[in-house]
């Protein structure tokens, strides 16, 4: 469980997160909101790239904000970025192994864990293939494999389906849904694809202008009047 209390982030004159309090209970949780609502800033706070001016984040009993940024990976934090971050010059195996090496997981289990993660995301490319030579879909899957290897506890997925065609999104959706059961990690999914969010997430939080405007079971939240008005527009089909 991730508990966020009174979180405030301020950049000179802008307040992307404004006294936000929200609870992510477990499983796969959605985080949605219009562009500029503060979703990615929230991820950056969790990663340690952005220091909040106020508020606390408690993740499974640990004070996340007290941890040095590069130690959070060892604690079990994983994330993907909106832009692609798989390392082109390394092989698929090395890409995933690199995360495992810094995760604090046992060296002896590295090969097995890495291959299991590659297998888990359903990547057909051979592990020795260079990531630079793969297609967009496969590179995306490599990023997800990187996000689940080495005992993850909190997995942040920042628009993983952006730019993917529908059938690829469906495959990705099935992969994401299995992460909590397979690895015991809490997943926070940010995406603008509402079908992906409703397929994957039992609960969803909605933010707008840095404030939480609704949270709860995904189906209910998406029917919420405020949410429709703030984000989806009244004509949205759910």
């Amino acid at each position, binding site marked *: 469980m991730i508990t966020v209390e009174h979180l405030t982030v301020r950049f000179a004159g802008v307040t992307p997160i404004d006294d936000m309090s929200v609870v992510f209970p477990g499983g796969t949780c959605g985080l949605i909101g219009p562009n500029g609502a503060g979703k990615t800033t929230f991820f950056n706070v969790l990663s340690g790239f952005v220091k909040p001016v106020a508020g606390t984040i408690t993740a499974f009993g640990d004070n996340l904000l007290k941890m040095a*940024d590069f130690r959070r990976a060892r604690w079990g934090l994983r994330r993907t*970025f909106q832009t692609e971050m798989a*390392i082109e*010059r390394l092989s698929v195996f090395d890409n995933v192994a*690199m995360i495992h090496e810094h995760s604090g997981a046992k*060296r002896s289990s590295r090969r097995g864990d890495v291959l299991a993660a590659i297998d888990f995301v359903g990547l057909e490319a051979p592990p020795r293939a260079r990531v630079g030579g793969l297609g967009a879909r496969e590179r995306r899957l490599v990023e997800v494999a990187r996000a689940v290897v080495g005992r993850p506890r909190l997995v942040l997925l920042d628009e993983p389906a952006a730019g993917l065609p529908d059938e690829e999104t469906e495959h990705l959706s099935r992969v994401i849904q299995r992460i909590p059961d397979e690895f015991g990690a809490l997943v926070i999914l940010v995406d603008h694809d509402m079908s992906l969010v409703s397929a994957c997430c039992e609960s969803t939080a909605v933010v707008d202008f840095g404030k939480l405007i609704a949270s709860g079971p995904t189906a209910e939240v998406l029917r919420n009047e405020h949410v429709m008005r703030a984000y989806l527009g009244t004509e949205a089909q759910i």
Partner: protein
Amino acid sequence: MARVPIDVGRGTLVRGAVIGALLAFALAGLPAFAGADWITTFTSVAIYSVTALGFGVLYGRVGMISLGQVALLSVGCWVGARLSYASSMPFPILLLVVGLITCVIGVLVGLPALRLSGLYLALITLMFAGATTVVLSVIDFPNGGGGFTARSANPTLATETPPVRRPSWATGDAAYYRYTVIVCAILFLLALVHVSSKPGRAWASIRESEPAALSAGVNITLYKLWAFALASFMTGVSGCLLAAQVGVPRAITFQTQDSLTLAATALIGGIFSLWGAVVGGVFNQLLPFLFQAQWGVNANFLLIIFGAGLLQVLLTAPGGLAEQFPKDMAKLGRLAVRGIRAASRRKRRPA
């Protein structure tokens, strides 16, 4: 260490065989028929290959541009010369000590890299190169006399300055050439071990994106300094080899612009592969020798060639010759096969 699930395939075997054959040729074949000046040149090629490799590790693997690598080479050369005058430690120990001292200096030079990147880091390191050049000429490097700091009465006279020691069993030029090649091969192996294991992967992730590396748990400070330490160690050792090769090193040998030329030749050779460093060393040392001593052409014309080559690499072949050459050869091979097939088809057809 977890093994990558790659069975040792034919590619690896062929590569190993090629490297073995080349090394055997360099060690046994070349000195047998090459003249004295060729041997000296090839010793320099080996030394500057390692320097180019240092540049390649920093820029190709981690993405940090250092234009002060030849300055570090001169630091290694200077420390090596002075320690050789001051002590009587065995040559391999001397190499190691010089490597470690240069390593410390290189890490200090690399400290700004933790805050600066790209052009700014390049400028800082270039200033280091400039400062080194100034210091070396002001103190009349290396000033051979006894002890670590003693000056000889007339340092301009080479006869008064004792030559830097060579290993006792490799005093001749050919033997010393072999010695240098072996040491350089060990340094290449050291680099290979680094780039193909944990530090190499961490460096690759830093090069791709620092935020992503940070969120992957990479201690960026540690791994950047590690890269500087490795590159400076290798450059320091090769600097010491250089000191013993020339015997009496002179400040004039190390110009600030050499650092730029080295960066250019390393880029032309290719900064993403270890082969590129060898090609870079050949360009840096063999071509000037060919121009000046063999063909009687002013070696300064090479700057134009290096400039054009650098432009070509930056525009069309970011991987340098090391990546481009095999591709071109494969293309040429395919063309040749197609040509032969077409010719044989034409022959079979009745006239």
